[in-house]
């Protein structure tokens, strides 16, 4: 037999790293056989629903439950007064603040939870929720973050009005949450003062919501016989939920089991702990029967974790020939009524200080002030606790603004300021150590792939035709180059509520040579059961299809910090590889015994250990697995298992070059996305098909955000965009054809060189769309307008520039 062909066949059989293996999850998802929280039905289960505030800011004068309690089938109605004796009317947030579980004396945002109704069915609960009589005294609402720290701004958080030392240092005003800064402000200011050219823009990244297909929910079940509380829920971090639940309920952690079943999309919306979880748990503890709470779409959009709401004032200093000499940025961060972000303790604005982006900027400063407003809390979704997306949007817009001022091509300006390949590992002015990158190669490939020169020439022709009156459309070309920071992260820097952000994998090889691996993460659509099995297949030589992946049950899975922030592959993926290597190390000892040679005489070959120079003398992993259970091997314990807890030495820094072409009808503002090219470099690629799918999804989110999504509030605190009637969720029709591409620059510190990709397209996509829209009007002097670039705002831009009437 041809040895080479045999090896190739064995490699293919594994379906390991680099294989576009089909998703094993899809067999059940495409047949409607997934098992989501709302599919859970337990004997005697009751249902919860909330009575919510119609006001953005109001004092609660009284609550009368009588009418609600009189509805047949209503079991209980809980208010803050009922939770106070348990000290559960407030819960700790992941950002060091507290959040009302049920409104305590005041409501601070529209749709805030006021009372929790427990009833025999979901319909009765909803009927009774309408009958909870609450008398409110309306208070002036604060919806403009820029007015939050005015002298006469209304006091929102009476519960902490005397607590002027916040979780992240002193508070300057009763509506101030924190000030945080990084970098050299004096140096940045000096660079601006000395610069030949400076630009400044206030760039708002509007409030949006990821709107996962499945909303948030849970089933809480207290077994009063054995004292064990089980929580099934849409939890992106089940172990963290268990620890938090134990800390706030005083139930010992071993008596709490948290299970994340199938999750229909998370995007950070399912990281936080919500009032519904606490109320369901309390109700189950009190009644001794299971309680289900599942929010509806309006509740999801209007109360559970939003994203963004950052107002970023950026300033760039540069030489006349386009060399950036300094960056200064100040952010006003609107956190809503409670600070419910999920940042590492050290970083209340997440990793916003990645805002120097892909550029070698010698001196930089960023400062962030967080404020309270009468809006829903959150600031977790879409990697927004880490604020990388906001930072990327700010710097990528500022680069384009600078390019206009210098009258330089935006791609050329980027190339001129990129961190060069030989500078990696590169330490940025704001202190991050970028692990690896080759930005020029990626950008060159992108520009060549789209024939950028030809596009610019076509744009010149288009502009001339527009001037002649031959067309009413303007063409825009958006270039964005982003550097992500993912894989949170090193325990020395990253924690959630003090829990280090390591992750874990536990592997057991069965006697017949198949395996089960359990991880501390939880898939919400990422396809972990597919890709982590591929990592293992390559590491231990067992075909991916023979490896079961299990996540999400805290009674069985090893402790981990969950899935968000594109961290699963960088952290749990590394743990998987490391655990696999432990398996292989023991397998080598077993093989040496079986083949009666010294370990050092063996070499690994795809799925077996073979004697160096004599491949016919070998033991396959399957044979080794069996031997590990049926032979007494001197000096070795029986069995073949391993566990790894992986604390990454650094973050990983995926990057990419995106180019978007739009055609704008200036008379209507309708913007057609003609093409979108996305080159992603996420290091080693585990499953190209899944990467492509993640990029498609993230780009669609980016399209939605840049072109239409906006959760805003009117002057009295009514939420706008809180239902799908108004919140822009694009369909396949609005979604353009995505052209994906890649370069591969492995992470030098990750065991398999992988960097993570899930959020890259959201990070890079939004500035690409936004830059394209601005580029269409650049020749008319437009520098910046705020998102979303929906029809009327784009038309308004065209009108202000005198292009339409």
């Amino acid at each position: 037999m041809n040895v080479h062909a045999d090896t190739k066949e064995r490699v293919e059989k594994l379906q390991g790293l680099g294989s576009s293996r089909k998703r094993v999850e899809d067999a059940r998802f495409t047949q409607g056989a997934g098992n989501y929280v709302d599919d859970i039905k337990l004997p005697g289960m009751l249902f919860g629903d909330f009575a919510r505030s119609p006001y953005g800011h109001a004092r609660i004068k009284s609550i009368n439950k009588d009418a609600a309690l009189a509805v047949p089938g209503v079991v209980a109605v809980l208010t803050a007064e009922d939770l106070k004796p348990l000290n559960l009317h407030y819960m700790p947030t992941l950002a060091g603040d507290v959040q009302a579980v049920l409104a305590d004396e005041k409501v601070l945002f529209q749709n805030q939870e006021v009372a929790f109704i427990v009833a025999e069915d979901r319909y009765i609960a909803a009927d009774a929720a309408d009958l909870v009589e609450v008398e409110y005294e309306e208070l002036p609402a604060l919806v403009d973050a820029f007015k939050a720290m005015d002298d006469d701004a209304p006091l929102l958080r009476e519960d902490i009005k005397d607590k002027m030392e916040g979780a992240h240092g002193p508070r300057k005003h009763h509506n101030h949450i924190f000030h945080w800064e990084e970098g050299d402000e004096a140096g940045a200011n000096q660079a601006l003062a000395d610069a030949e050219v400076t630009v400044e823009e206030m760039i708002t990244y509007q409030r949006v919501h990821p709107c996962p297909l499945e909303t948030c929910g849970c089933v809480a079940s207290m077994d009063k016989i054995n004292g064990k509380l089980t929580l099934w829920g849409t939890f992106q971090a089940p172990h963290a939920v268990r620890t938090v639940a134990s800390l706030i309920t005083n139930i010992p952690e071993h008596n709490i089991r948290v299970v994340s079943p199938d999750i229909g999309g998370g995007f950070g919306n399912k990281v936080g702990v919500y009032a519904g979880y606490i109320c369901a748990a309390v109700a189950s503890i009190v009644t001794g029967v299971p309680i289900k709470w599942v929010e509806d779409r309006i509740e999801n959009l209007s109360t559970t974790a939003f994203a963004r709401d950052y107002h970023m004032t950026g300033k760039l200093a540069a030489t006349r020939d386009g060399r950036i000499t300094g960056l200064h940025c100040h952010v006003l961060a609107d956190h809503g009524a409670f600070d419910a972000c999920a940042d590492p303790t050290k970083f209340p604005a997440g990793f916003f200080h990645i805002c120097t982006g892909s550029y070698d900027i010698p001196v930089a400063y960023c400062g962030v002030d967080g404020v309270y407003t009468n809006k829903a809390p959150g600031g977790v979704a879409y990697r927004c606790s880490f604020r990388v997306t906001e930072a990327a949007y700010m710097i990528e817009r500022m680069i384009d603004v600078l390019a206009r001022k210098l009258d330089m091509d935006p791609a050329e300006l980027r190339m001129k300021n990129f961190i060069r390949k030989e500078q990696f590992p590169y330490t940025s002015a704001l202190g991050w150590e970028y692990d690896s990158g080759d930005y020029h190669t990626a950008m060159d490939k992108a520009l060549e792939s789209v024939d950028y020169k030809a596009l610019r020439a076509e744009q010149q022709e288009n502009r001339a035709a527009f001037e002649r009156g031959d067309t009413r459309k303007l063409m825009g070309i958006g270039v964005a180059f982003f550097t992500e920071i993912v894989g949170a992260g090193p325990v020395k820097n990253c924690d959630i509520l003090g829990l280090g952000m390591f992750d874990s994998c536990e592997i057991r090889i069965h006697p017949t040579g198949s395996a089960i691996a359990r991880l501390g993460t939880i898939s919400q659509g990422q396809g972990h059961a597919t890709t982590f099995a591929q990592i293992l297949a390559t590491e231990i030589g067992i075909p991916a299809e023979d490896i079961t992946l299990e996540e999400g049950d805290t009674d069985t899975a090893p402790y981990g910090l969950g899935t968000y922030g594109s961290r699963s592959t960088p952290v749990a993926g590394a743990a998987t590889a490391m655990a696999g290597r432990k398996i292989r190390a023991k397998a080598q000892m077993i093989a040496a015994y079986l083949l009666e040679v010294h370990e050092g005489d063996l070499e690994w070959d795809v799925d077996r250990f073979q004697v160096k120079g004599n491949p016919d003398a070998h033991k396959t992993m399957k044979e080794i697995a069996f031997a590990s259970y049926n032979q007494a091997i001197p000096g070795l314990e029986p069995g073949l298992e391993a566990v790894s807890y992986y604390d990454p030495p650094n973050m990983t820094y995926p990057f990419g070059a995106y180019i978007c072409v739009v055609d704008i009808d200036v008379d209507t503002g309708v913007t057609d996305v003609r093409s979108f090219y996305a080159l992603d470099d996420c290091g080693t690629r585990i499953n190209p098909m899944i990467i492509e799918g993640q990029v498609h999804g993230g780009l669609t989110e980016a399209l939605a955000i840049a072109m239409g999504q906006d959760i805003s509030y009117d002057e009295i605190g009514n939420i706008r965009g809180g239902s799908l009637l108004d919140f822009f969720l694009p369909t396949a029709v609005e979604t353009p054809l995505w052209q994906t591409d890649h370069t591969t620059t492995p992470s030098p510190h990750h065991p398999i060189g992988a960097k993570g990709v899930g959020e890259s397209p959201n990070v890079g996509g939004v500035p690409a769309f936004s830059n394209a829209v601005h580029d269409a009007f650049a020749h008319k002097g437009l520098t910046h307008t705020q998102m979303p670039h929906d029809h009327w705002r784009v038309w308004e831009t065209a009108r202000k520039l005198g292009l339409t009437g």
Partner: protein
Amino acid sequence: MIPGSFDYHRPTSVDEAVGLLAGHAGNALILAGGHSLIPMMKLRMAMPEHLIDIQDIASLSSIEVSGPQIEIGANVTQAELIASEDLEQHCPILRETSLQIADPQIRNVGTLGGNVANGDPGNDMPAIMQLLDATYVLSGPDGSREVKARDFYEAAYFTTRDEAEMLTSIRFTAPPAGHGSSYMKQKRKIGDYATAAAGVVLTMSGDTCASASIGLTNVADTPLWAEDASNALIGTTLDDAAVSAAVDAAKAITDPAADGRGPAEYRTHVAGIMVQRAIQAAHQRAN
């Protein structure tokens, strides 16, 4: 998003349905495709005690074409309007408009009767029925009566239909052969209501516009028949000045609300653009 409780009825004849409506006057609503009513019920903006599902009334499902006279039953779905070769031949604007209503799944269930009867100004068919000068047939406890589409709508969700009546069919005379028509709709996404939309049917006699009728969707609290705008085209060659006059006349009767689609001024502006483009397209299609 959880509706209140209601009793569900599924009559098999118009008489039975009308009897149920009359018997529960004020507390009963007709359920057709449900695409407007069910969301309203889930939002508890509509809380009928009785829901009368008319899908089993077979007599409401036909499309009758005899010469230029067309009668379409209330239960005919948008998908059926799209599939009808008779309608495509005699009145293609119905197909063009239906194809711009939401997506195929909705069009498989959404009905013409439901679209025109509930008075939602965002629905597309009412403006088309107004520009075609259609007649709605209503059945009530005292028999049936006819109401012009142009007289039917009073305000958002308010029509001249009595609460004990149901709409059973729609009648109109197809525009003459050789007419041109177009429905132009700007929306943010599939499934969204129009930012503004305009339908135009016109006929040409040589280079001169012999007849024209324009309807507007979602730019007031009722659908609008733009009579002055229509008249501004008749007798002209559809030159720029005439089109511009029609556009101005159409914009003058709009009164849109500011909403997520943009401020009122913008929506009026878009209405004008839709009228202009629909006239151009209809002109090109006329012969």
